[in-house]
């Protein structure tokens, strides 16, 4: 048993080495020279995917199913191609939201739900327990095999050994201690462990090298290359069928479902999440790791088949567990150092998995399960304690021990009934339950907390029923009839053939039912319900997370391959190429570069680009547009909607502006025309005053002239004197009339005129007017005719004013008609609403140009300079004012040589009309 000490010694030495590496990496990290900040270490650390399952189990699987071990690695290879979208988004979202575990991710996504965090934790812990037990089984068996060296024999069944005599129990405790030392030495807010990652990467390297060393030894030392090995295997009885896929060893349905399953595993296993997301230093590492990890998987599996076939040929009796060919082969060949190396490789695979997995689980247990509960327990008053780190560390450590002990318990209960790979697959199926909630949560806004919680719970329940419980039954912990007859003999509920579904292997069967229930509940309940506000906010942050993490400054997380040229071109599209180039060149000079071509495309430059664009197209659009170039992701629907929103807002805004400017334009046009009117009025006033003074001066001049004559010549004869005095009186009357009219007009225009409204009969008024001007017409030899209807309705008006209008129009007619042949006709007609009076003459008529101005003050037809004015020029102006005031209108129709007709209307009196002033008719065009 001397070898036992060596094995134990070497194991501890190896663990010591791991600690040294971890310590060194931590020190380097403290000095800012991180050991793990490169894509190769990142990819190697992701190699934690390869556990004892790979190291020992793949060979065992290959020995029973040929290439049936491969789908477990094809899945990750394919999924790695989607990391570009999926994992990158998870990393961004997690970094932006400070997420440190899968439970955290799900809880945060659905409105920081503690319930969901708890559910995920429970599923993860229970689901991973078989996986942990797999590692325990592998380590303990490999120990047992090594300890019996050089004898080659399989260890005894563990179930028969009492607990305290069971090596596996101590191994579990040792691993727990090891993990505690590794993962919970101190607390870190980001839950990142630089040293741990370095150690895990190193372990990945060790297990890869160990396996390849063994593979090379087997293939090229035991046999003459792979051709020789496979040729001999083909001749070996019973091995021939392993070279094919034939439905007995593996069928294509299982093949596809295992590929599918492992795709989720590489993304959603807690330890993968821990390594790929939480421990990620730089998002760009993903790009390299996306093909380095598959390459790693490729390399570590390259020799699985040769080793499996060599093992089966070396131990044809079948008494050796194919899972441990990896150890027994070099032992049989007396290769001590190779055996030890392989053993260390296996130890690496197991410890790596256990350490990272339990750390990830204990983080979940602590942060998502225990601490929320403890904080709620009022008697503990934990909220008030300043420093909780002691409690947190204790919970973490207890969590690690619990997980390992659960793994050990499962190993004791069910571990013996399955090969390594089959145990691992149980865990894979459990982890797949996270897929709908996580992936749906990352890409579907409508996903709700209820949907996620019910989906997870339902899927997990189906998993327990169709995979976990049967594993207990197989190992005799439950009655075997549970599997064979169904619970209580109900055949439809047989856990491995639920509702009579047969023809699938256990895992595929479980995967189908559990994901059906899971995704069904998740999608169905999400569609039926609607997310709460908190969920919606989180949904936005998560679903848009890939585009930079929501509303906060997003450029932070951008990693880009965009070139300066692209950024300039992009900016140029909105700002103009010249301006864009100038802006970038100025920026380059500002940062000490010679030209913009030398600028590094970094966060600062992207932000600068964004800033340049914000001014042009608004913040949301700028971000989305820069993202479209920088992030190499297509614009999401949401971004497009944002842009549209913003654009339509801008559009509405500019439309409003346009409206306003149109209003302004209209107002200014009105002002302009008002101003023009004012100026015209001003001019008119000046004209008016000069005209009035001119008009006043004429009679005054003649009055003064005749008065002077009378004064200077007191000896004038009385006939002459009487004549002169008569002229003076006449001129004075004219002066008085003129002044009266001016005053009248001023009163009318200012609205101060007195009105004496009453119901009047226009026929009377017209007859009075005709009688008044009768003398005038007779003097001038003009005939006047009246055409009156027999009876008309009364109008409500000021009789004197109407009379004034009529007299004015009639005297005008008399003035302009030729003596002798002159003829004027005054007509009254009635319409439904108004009475109309026309005064027609057969005078010279009024030209079209003059028609527009004759109603203006002091405007008279004809040249006032050469012809003697026929009146003051105020009459028609006054008439129009009066008619307008009475609610009617006054206009003229005429053509030169055919006389003129002045017409005006007066509205009929209505009962409700109290004052004609109020019934002002709209001014009509003349």
């Amino acid at each position: 048993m001397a070898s036992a000490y060596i094995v134990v010694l070497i194991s501890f030495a190896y663990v010591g080495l791991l600690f040294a590496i971890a310590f060194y990496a931590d020190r380097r990290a403290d000095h800012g020279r991180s050991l793990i900040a490169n894509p190769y270490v990142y990819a190697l650390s992701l190699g934690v995917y390869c556990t004892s399952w790979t190291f020992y189990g793949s060979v065992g699987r290959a020995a029973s199913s040929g290439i049936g071990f491969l789908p477990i690695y094809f899945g990750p290879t394919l999924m790695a191609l989607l990391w570009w979208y999926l994992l990158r988004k998870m990393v961004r979202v997690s970094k932006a939201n400070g997420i440190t575990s899968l439970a955290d991710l799900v809880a945060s996504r659905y409105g920081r739900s503690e319930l969901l965090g708890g559910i995920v934790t429970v599923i993860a812990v229970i689901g991973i327990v078989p996986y942990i037990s797999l590692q325990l089984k592998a380590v303990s068996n490999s120990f047992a095999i090594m300890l019996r060296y050089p004898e080659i024999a399989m260890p005894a069944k563990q179930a028969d050994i009492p607990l305290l005599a069971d090596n596996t129990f101590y191994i579990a405790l040792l691993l727990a201690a090891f993990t505690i030392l590794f993962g919970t030495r101190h607390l870190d807010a980001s839950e990142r462990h630089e040293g741990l990652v370095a150690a895990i990467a190193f372990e990945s390297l060790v297990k890869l090298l160990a396996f390849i060393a063994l593979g090379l030894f087997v293939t090229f030392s035991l046999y003459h290359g792979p051709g020789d090995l496979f040729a001999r295997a083909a001749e070996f009885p019973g091995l021939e069928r392993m070279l094919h896929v034939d439905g007995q060893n593996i069928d294509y349905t299982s093949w596809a479902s295992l590929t599918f399953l492992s795709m989720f595993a590489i993304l959603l296993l807690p330890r993968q999440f821990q390594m790929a997301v939480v421990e990620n230093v730089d998002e760009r590492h993903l790009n390299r790791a996306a093909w380095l990890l598959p390459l790693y998987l490729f390399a570590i599996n390259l020799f699985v088949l040769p080793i499996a076939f060599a093992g089966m040929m070396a131990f044809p009796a079948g008494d050796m567990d194919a899972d441990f060919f990896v150890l027994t082969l070099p032992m049989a060949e007396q290769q001590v150092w190779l055996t030890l190396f392989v053993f260390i490789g296996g130890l690496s695979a197991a410890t790596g998995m256990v350490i990272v997995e339990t750390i990830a689980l204990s983080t979940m247990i602590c942060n998502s399960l225990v601490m929320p509960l403890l904080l709620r327990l009022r008697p503990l008053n934990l909220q008030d304690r300043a420093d909780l780190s002691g409690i947190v560390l204790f919970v973490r450590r207890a969590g690690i021990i619990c997980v390992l002990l659960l793994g050990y318990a499962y190993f004791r209960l069910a571990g013996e009934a399955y090969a390594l790979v089959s145990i691992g697959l149980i865990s894979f199926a459990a982890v797949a339950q996270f897929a709908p909630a996580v992936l749906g949560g990352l890409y579907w806004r409508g996903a709700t907390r209820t949907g996620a919680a019910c989906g997870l719970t339902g899927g997990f329940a189906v998993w327990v029923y169709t995979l976990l419980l049967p594993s207990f039954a197989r190992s005799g912990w439950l009655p075997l009839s549970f599997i064979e007859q169904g619970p209580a003999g109900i055949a439809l509920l047989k856990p491995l053939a639920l509702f009579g579904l047969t023809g699938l292997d256990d895992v595929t069967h479980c995967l189908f039912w559990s994901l059906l229930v899971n995704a069904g509940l998740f999608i169905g309940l999400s569609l039926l319900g609607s997310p709460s506000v908190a969920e919606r906010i989180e949904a936005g942050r998560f679903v848009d997370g890939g585009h930079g993490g929501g509303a906060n400054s997003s450029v932070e997380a951008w990693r880009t391959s965009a070139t300066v040229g692209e950024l300039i071109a992009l900016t140029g599209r909105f700002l103009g190429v010249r301006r864009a180039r100038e802006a970038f060149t100025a920026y380059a000079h500002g940062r000490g570069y010679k030209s913009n071509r030398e600028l590094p495309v970094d966060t600062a430059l992207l932000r600068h680009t964004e800033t340049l664009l914000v001014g042009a197209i608004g913040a949301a659009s700028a971000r989305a547009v820069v993202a479209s170039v920088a992030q190499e992701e297509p614009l999401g629907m949401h971004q497009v909607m944002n842009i549209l929103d913003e654009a339509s807002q801008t559009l509405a805004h500019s439309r409003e502006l346009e409206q306003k400017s149109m209003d302004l334009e209209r107002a200014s046009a009105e002002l302009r025309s008002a101003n023009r009117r004012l100026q015209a009025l001003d001019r008119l006033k000046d004209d008016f005053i000069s005209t009035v003074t001119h008009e006043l001066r004429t009679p005054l001049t003649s009055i003064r002239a005749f008065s002077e004559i009378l004064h200077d010549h007191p000896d004038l004869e009385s006939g002459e004197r009487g004549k002169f005095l008569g002229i003076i009186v006449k001129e004075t009357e004219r002066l008085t009339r003129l002044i009266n009219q001016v005053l009248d007009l001023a009163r009318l225009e200012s609205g101060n005129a007195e009105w004496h409204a009453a119901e009047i009969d226009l026929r009377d008024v017209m007859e009075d007017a005709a009688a008044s001007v009768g003398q005038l017409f007779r003097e001038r030899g003009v005939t006047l005719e009246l055409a009156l209807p027999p009876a008309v309705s009364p109008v409500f008006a000021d009789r004197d004013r109407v009379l004034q209008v009529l007299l004015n129009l009639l005297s005008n007619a008399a003035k302009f008609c030729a003596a002798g042949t002159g003829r004027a006709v005054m007509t009254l007609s009635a319409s439904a609403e108004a009475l109309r009076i026309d005064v027609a003459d057969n005078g010279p008529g009024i030209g079209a140009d003059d028609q527009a101005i004759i109603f203006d003050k002091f405007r008279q037809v004809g040249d006032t300079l050469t012809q003697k004015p026929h009146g003051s020029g105020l009459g028609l102006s006054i008439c129009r004012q009066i008619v307008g005031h009475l609610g009617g209108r006054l206009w003229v129709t005429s053509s030169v040589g055919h006389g003129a007709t002045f017409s005006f209307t007066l509205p009929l009196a209505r009962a409700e009309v109290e004052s004609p002033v109020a019934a002002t008719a709209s001014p009509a065009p003349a």
Partner: protein
Amino acid sequence: MAKPSTTGARLIGLFLGGCLLLNYPLLDLFNRDASVFGIPLLFVYAFGAWGLIIALAALVLSRRE
């Protein structure tokens, strides 16, 4: 340099192609008694297709750097 969006598109194309290559029925075409340098055709194909996908992924992801 590859256009930003094409890297993602190429990877998705590669993913779909990989799903086809590494599954029934294409896989079954090579499931027969034949060997390349003494290695069964099925094994050669499985590892060959796998290696090809990894190489193409490396190519796609490196060209953009």
